[in-house]
């Protein structure tokens, strides 16, 4: 008897099998990318740490109470208005007495430039909702970013966001130095009956 060549395996169903697997992976795939507001916590308190005195005019106190109401420098305010207020405070364009002091600093690309000694102090209650807290943080971050964008546009003709995208560290660093994000968070208080 002559040796028979084994019959070829029918590969027609291969596509079906592959489709089945494909559908499985399509369904289980989660391409979730994590977005978030990046912050740096202050290092733990050293026992012999000095208390730094900051002049009143250099501080913008932002208080959020348990009812999610906002008090900025003693004024009741809506979240939408916080950004403008913060921008005005940080930049102090007209060198007002009531707004932060400025000092001359040598910064790359800018040469000597007046930088304000602003600090934003954020204090929330234990009963403040997380959503409100994020909104406030977001508005403050937005104030800084908008100021940076304006400055960058004025100086280099390109926005700050552009440099961040382009990973141009020198420019980003220089712009950040002019408008440094200084949000200090005080220990929260438990006035508004904030419970867990």
């Amino acid at each position, binding site marked *: 008897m002559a040796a028979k060549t084994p019959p070829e395996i029918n590969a027609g169903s291969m596509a079906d099998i592959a489709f089945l697997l494909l559908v499985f992976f399509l369904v289980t795939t989660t391409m979730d990318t994590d*977005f978030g507001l*990046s912050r740096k916590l202050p290092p733990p308190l050293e026992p012999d740490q000095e208390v730094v005195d900051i002049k009143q005019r250099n501080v913008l106190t932002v208080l959020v109470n348990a009812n999610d109401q906002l008090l900025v420098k003693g004024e009741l305010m809506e979240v939408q208005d916080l950004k403008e207020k913060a921008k005005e405070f940080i930049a102090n364009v007209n060198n007002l007495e009531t707004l932060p002091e400025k000092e001359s600093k040598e910064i790359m690309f800018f040469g000597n430039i007046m930088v304000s000694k602003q600090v934003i102090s954020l204090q929330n209650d234990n009963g403040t909702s*997380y959503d409100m807290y994020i909104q406030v943080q*977001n508005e403050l971050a937005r104030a800084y970013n908008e100021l940076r964008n304006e400055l960058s546009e004025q100086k280099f003709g390109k926005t700050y966001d552009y440099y961040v995208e382009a990973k141009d560290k020198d420019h980003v660093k220089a712009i950040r130095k002019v408008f440094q994000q200084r949000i200090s968070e005080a220990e929260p208080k438990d006035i508004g009956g904030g419970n867990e």
Partner: protein
Amino acid sequence: MSKFKKGGKKDLPAVSTASLPDIVFMLLFFFMVTTVMREVDLKVKMSQPEATEIKKLENKSLVNYIYIGEPTDVETNGTTPRIQLNDAFATVEDIQEYIETKRSEVDEQVIPLLTTSLKVDSDTKMGIVTKVKQELREVNALKISYSTRERNEKK
């Protein structure tokens, strides 16, 4: 006698499907490679707040997650916001240990680059979040990220 037939209806040749498996396999491999299986089962409610000034978290292997929110299973776990680490509920005291464990899993050089992503439900009160933050401060896990969704705004 001509070699070429004139007129005469011809059947259109069928499109060859022989390369179909190849195409499908290509897609399959793409999804196999990009797929990330969900690592944890969420036991807490999670609807994150929205924000605009957000950054993408790069390098997922260097991110630790802490979930805070109301338990989804209200009947057995109540409605008090709870902390979830990995797959189980935890208390504030467990956080330091959790961070230490995560640290021991990575190279020593990258420890300062570790980020903690706080995934917190928007209805949660700040009290518990602050406690978590204090714990993180104590273990020197200072890089944090408040996980949010992106808000699309028309300017």
